């Protein structure tokens, strides 16, 4: 098990029902993709929020990453929909 600090934004935040949380994840969770799959086992709210997994964007330590990125050593992992600023 390892500890991850998660932050959520926009409708990912709304659907999960919180803006941040700290979770223990199994050692088998290596990448962002693994993390998303794991989160979806935690309850309906996660399942709904992360249903269309390929549209979910991720950042590790406030930098954009692909779903294949390893999460080892991450201080902060963010999950959010495509951005709509500007």
């Amino acid at each position, binding site marked *: 098990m390892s500890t991850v600090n998660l932050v959520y934004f*926009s409708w990912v935040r709304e659907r999960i029902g919180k803006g941040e949380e700290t979770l223990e994840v199994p050692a088998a969770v290596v990448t962002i993709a693994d993390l998303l799959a794991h989160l979806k086992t935690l309850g309906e709210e996660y399942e709904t929020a992360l249903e269309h997994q390929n549209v979910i964007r991720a950042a590790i330590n406030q*930098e*954009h990453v692909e779903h294949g990125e390893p999460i080892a050593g991450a201080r902060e992992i*963010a999950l959010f*929909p495509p*951005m*709509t*600023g*500007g």
Partner: protein
Amino acid sequence: MGAPVTVRVQREDFDLSAEVSKLSSDRPDIGAVVTFSGLCRDEAGMLAALELEHYPGMAEAEIERICNLAVERFGLQAATAIHRYGRIIPGENIVLVVTASPHRQAAFDGASFIMDFLKTSAPFWKKEHLTDGTAGSWVSAKDADDTARDRWKR
């Protein structure tokens, strides 16, 4: 020393002339200044307000990274980007980009480049509040914005 890059993420409005003056005063080597202001549209009267959520820290860092890319690629003499968050009503400013260069094309390209990448990479999300009182929904990302960004690939 690189060109001065100024990035701010703030709730309050900005003043166009003040930002241009800050960037261009005492710089008689500047020949061209381009500004882009993005404003909240009323969507034919249907929109009451936008609520802008952002990722504090990453928003500033990402915009700064984009501005530095533009400075390097187009040889800008200076660049400023300011993005607001919170509740914004129609007619109000959302975002400002200012670029300076000796000649006009670089200033135009730099500002356009910064906006195209800011749209697709800076962690901001817009929620619509409608005039009929409903909360509306989160604005969807547009394919056109990805296309606009991708034309800078080389």
